[in-house]
């Protein structure tokens, strides 16, 4: 089967089918024509045979009839009829030798009768019917002969049909005798037709010689041929031709017909042989064709195989450096040379394409990896390119963003004018950019730096615009953070200087207060005042130390510690406070599988204490503060969670919660540095802090810290992604 899928096989199959179709058509056409020709030939043959046979029979009958007529008028016989005494000498020898002329004449019976139908003599060759030995007077035909009319009639004798010819012998208008001949009609058959050609002579009473089946006889009798027509019919396996006899038969009212029959095999056998020969020739030609096709297509296919091999090499190996290099001057050679030229160009183009593809891939990679959201809009404003950063920034996939024109979907009404102006500016070539808020799917307006660049094809036809949108929220935050940092740095410097300047007076105050207190002379009120001075001075000193700690850039010592250890130590510190405030404080034991942290234990404890203290402070009595830890859902870190059911924070408070010195606590109860210091500690550990709060419901603060051993480079990204 595989062979027939090949070109050679298909060509072979094609020619085979052509051969089969041709042979089939030839067989059908030729056999059909041959059948008609054979039918005509057989009809002609039958007609010819029938004509010849009927002519022979008619001629024989006419000949015999004429002979009998002349015999009856022969004076020898006339005299013999009349001369009874002497005729024995001359008549008997004559009659003994007398024969009918023509076919079978030697087998015919001949009689010479007297006027009364008595036999005078007869030819002595054959025994005859007993009734004929002496006279014919009782025969039906005799009365006709006695009336002077010749008679011809069919008689039946010995199981055979005989034809009897009787002529009166006249002398002076008187019938003085008769000559009679009788012969087996089958003698008229003559030479039987060769090759199975059957011949039947048919009278109204039935066959005179030959055989016809009952069906054939019935059909022949149903025929009523028009004059000049000779009906033929096919019955069973035999052709029949009916030839009404004319001439003698018609003249004497015999109504004979000659029926020739020819086995249909005569028609079908040559047809079968013809078909077999044609099929054999067709099969032989198919083989010859196959050989010729295989041989002929070999020279055709070798170049094709070279072409195909070259193509296969290109397809399988991608080696465009292959060439067919066919030297033939024919069409295949032309194809091969064209193909080689095509390969040349293809190779060149492929190299260009590969370069372009590399560029495109690079561009795509760049585009995809770009932190900026990139969108390419066609002239209709539909998004055609939509990178990952854009999806992340705006929350729509390419399909979703393509549902509507980009500007209608992303640019809010307030920014339409700005963007339109931007597009106008970009239309002059080059880029134009501005900071504008665009709509995201989930978070609403997103401040982006929008850069619009018009793009055009090689001939300068505009293709659309590229929108590069950089998220300005982080920039803004960083910018704000930078301002804050600069502010904090300035404050730190200020605080450090101030603290340094304050420490000395405070030390003196505290020293003098303590020295005064230790004097025994002091009354209680003074002592009390001195104690208050020392206490407040101590508090100031503590504050100064805190400020120093805030502003001082210390490099913490980090160690591996289990979270549970951290929780135990912190819990012990704040447990009493919670209890006093009637707040349910619960530290949920972390899982044993929770990874350890590699942190500055003191700082992390300080951070946790800040958070727990804030929670306890914000939680009214009866509330609950819960501390827990679990592996972070994202990144290789651990989440430490401090949740309360306290008052929560409004948005404006939350916005400033991490500002230094911002506090909502009563004056004297808080420095406003707790959360700020906590964030600094966490971020110094590569972690992150997140606050979820709802006024009246509570606040949950989560810390994300990298597990021990995690690569420091990943901390930032993971921490960013964690939020």
């Amino acid at each position, binding site marked *: 089967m595989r062979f027939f899928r090949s070109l050679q096989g298909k060509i072979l199959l094609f020619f085979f089918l052509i051969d089969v179709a041709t042979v089939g058509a030839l067989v059908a056409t030729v056999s059909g024509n041959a059948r008609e020709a054979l039918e005509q030939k057989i009809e002609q043959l039958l007609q010819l045979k029938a004509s010849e046979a009927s002519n022979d029979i008619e001629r024989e009958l006419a000949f015999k009839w004429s002979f009998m007529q002349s015999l009856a*008028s022969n*004076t*020898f016989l*006339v*005299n013999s*009829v*009349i*001369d*009874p*005494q*002497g005729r024995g000498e*001359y008549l008997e020898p004559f009659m003994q030798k007398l024969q009918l002329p023509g076919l079978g004449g030697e087998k015919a019976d001949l009689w010479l009768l*007297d*006027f*009364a139908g*008595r036999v*005078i003599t007869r030819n002595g060759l054959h025994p005859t019917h007993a009734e004929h030995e002496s006279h014919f007077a009782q025969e039906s035909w005799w009365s006709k002969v006695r*009336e*002077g009319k010749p008679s011809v009639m069919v008689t039946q004798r010995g199981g055979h049909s005989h034809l009897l010819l009787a002529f009166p012998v*006249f*002398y*002076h*208008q*008187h019938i*003085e*005798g008769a000559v009679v001949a009788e012969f087996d009609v089958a003698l008229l058959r003559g030479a039987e037709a060769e090759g199975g050609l059957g011949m039947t002579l048919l009278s109204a009473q039935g066959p005179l010689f030959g055989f016809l089946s009952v069906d054939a006889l019935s059909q022949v009798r149903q025929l009523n041929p028009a004059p000049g027509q000779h009906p033929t019919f096919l019955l069973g396996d035999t052709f029949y031709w009916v030839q009404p006899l004319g001439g003698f038969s018609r003249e004497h009212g015999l109504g004979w017909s000659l029926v020739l029959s020819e086995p249909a095999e005569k028609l079908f056998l040559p047809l079968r042989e013809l078909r077999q020969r044609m099929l054999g020739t067709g099969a032989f030609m198919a083989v010859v064709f196959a050989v010729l096709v295989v041989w002929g297509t070999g020279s055709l296919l070798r170049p094709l195989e070279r072409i195909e091999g070259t193509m296969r090499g290109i397809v399988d190996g991608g080696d465009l450096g292959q060439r067919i290099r066919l030297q033939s001057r024919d069409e295949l050679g032309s194809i091969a040379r064209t193909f080689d030229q095509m390969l040349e160009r293809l190779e060149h183009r492929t190299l260009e394409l590969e370069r372009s593809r590399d560029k495109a891939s690079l561009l795509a990679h760049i585009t995809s990896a770009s932190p900026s959201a990139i969108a390419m809009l066609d002239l209709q404003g539909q998004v055609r390119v939509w990178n990952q950063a854009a999806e992340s920034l705006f929350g729509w996939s390419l399909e979703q963003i393509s549902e509507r024109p980009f500007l209608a979907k992303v640019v809010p009404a307030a920014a339409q004018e700005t963007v339109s102006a931007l597009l106008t500016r970009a239309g002059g070539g080059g880029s134009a950019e501005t900071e504008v808020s665009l709509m995201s799917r989930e978070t609403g307006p997103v401040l982006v730096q929008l850069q619009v660049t018009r793009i055009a094809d090689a001939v300068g036809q505009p293709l659309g615009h590229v929108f590069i949108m950089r998220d300005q929220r982080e920039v803004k935050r960083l910018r704000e953070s930078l301002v804050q940092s600069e502010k904090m740095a300035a404050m730190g410097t200020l605080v450090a200087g101030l603290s340094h300047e304050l420490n000395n007076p405070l030390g003196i105050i505290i020293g003098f207060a303590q020295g005064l207190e230790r004097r025994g002379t002091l009354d209680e009120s003074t002592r009390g005042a001195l104690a208050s001075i020392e206490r407040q001075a101590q508090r100031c000193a503590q504050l100064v130390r805190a400020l120093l700690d805030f502003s001082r850039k210390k490099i913490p010592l980090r160690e591996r510690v289990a979270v549970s250890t951290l929780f135990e130590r912190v819990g012990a510190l704040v447990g009493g406070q919670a209890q006093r405030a009637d707040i349910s404080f619960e530290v949920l034991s972390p899982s044993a599988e929770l990874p350890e942290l590699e942190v500055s234990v003191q700082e992390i404890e300080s951070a946790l204490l800040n958070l727990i203290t804030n929670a306890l402070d914000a939680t009214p009595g009866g509330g609950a503060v819960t501390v827990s830890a679990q592996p972070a859902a994202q990144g290789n870190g651990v989440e430490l969670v401090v949740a309360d059911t306290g008052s929560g924070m409004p948005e404006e408070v939350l916005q400033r919660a991490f500002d230094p010195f911002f506090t909502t606590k009563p004056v004297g109860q808080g420095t406003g540095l707790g959360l700020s210091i906590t964030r600094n500690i966490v971020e110094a550990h590569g972690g992150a802090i997140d606050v979820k709060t709802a006024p009246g419901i509570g606040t949950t603060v989560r810390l994300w810290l990298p597990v021990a051993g995690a690569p420091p480079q990943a901390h930032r990204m993971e921490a960013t992604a964690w939020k």
Partner: protein
Amino acid sequence: MQRLGWMLCVVLLLSGAASAQSKPSSTPPPKPPTLPPIVLGLHADMSSGSAMSGEAIRRGALLALSELNAQGGLLGGRKLQLVVRDHHGVPARATDQLQELASTPNLVAVLTGNHSAPFIQNFGFILGHQLIIMSPWAASTELIDNGLKPNYVFRVSARDEAVGRFLVQKAFERGHKKLGLLLEKTAWGRSTEKALREALASHQQAAVAVEWFNWAEEDMEPQLAALESAGAQAVLIAANAPEGALIVKAMARRPPDKRLPIYSHSGITAGNLPQLAGPSLAQVELHVLQTFFFVGTRDARAQAFIARYHETFGTKRAEDISAPTGTTQAYDAVWLLALAIEKAQTTDRPKVRDALEQLGPHRGLLRTYRPAFTASRHEALDLSDYKLATFTPEGVLVPSQP
């Protein structure tokens, strides 16, 4: 269809009517007793090639019967009747008819036609049925010299043997010494051949050639050419009228200097030869045997006979009496039979036969018979009765010039 006329039966009862007219009576005569007729048969060719002979015989017989019946008949008033059977000259037909005739009541004798064969082949029957056969024309020698005992056959006509001698003699007399024979291929022809050969032999001669012909022959030239080539100076023939006419025609077609004289038996006068031969008849020297001529006769009996003949058959002239020999010989033959019946006083055929042998002299029309027959001679005529005749251009038989 010219059917056979064998059933033609003519009964002439002339005597009764004639006597009633000649002998009128005032009172009706007593009714004569019914007597059986005396029947004579005529068995001849009445319609074929020799029909004229049959008719001539019939006429002669009828005239004789009319005379006899006019005289009151025979045997005390028994009238004579003639029953005719036409055998066409064909013996086979004659054989059948002869049986009919033999069974005819009151049949006494049968008159023949000019053909001998119908009777020759039935000698056994004739003898067995004691049929008296009276030949007024048939000439075969064998007809009379038949060996029958008793011989029931009588003849009032020529005899082949004598005809042979007569014709040879006449030819010789005319200087024709080398004679060729031309004969029909029948018993009569063979009988004539024998007679001619014997006659020639008696003159120490022999036929230069003998040729035969069939009935219905269509051309006689080959035979005549053969005879001529054989050196014949004359031709002696035995033929009936149709074939005789062919001979005449064939001879007439020959150059005049090649035409041979023909000496013929009487057979050619049995038919209408003048009509059959046509103009050829006048171009050929034809001599034919005859025994009687009405033309030119001065005999009173003959004149009376002619008158009765004209009266009976509506003819006007003697030349109108065709085949006179047959008529005359039949007339005489019937009279001889009548005489024999009268003599025998019975119609019993054997007795009549015997009476025929015992007749006395009788003056007939042709001759006076002294007597006609004897026990040893059943020939009524002899050579002296033979005459040589020829046809006039009108076809009338007249005596040949010596």
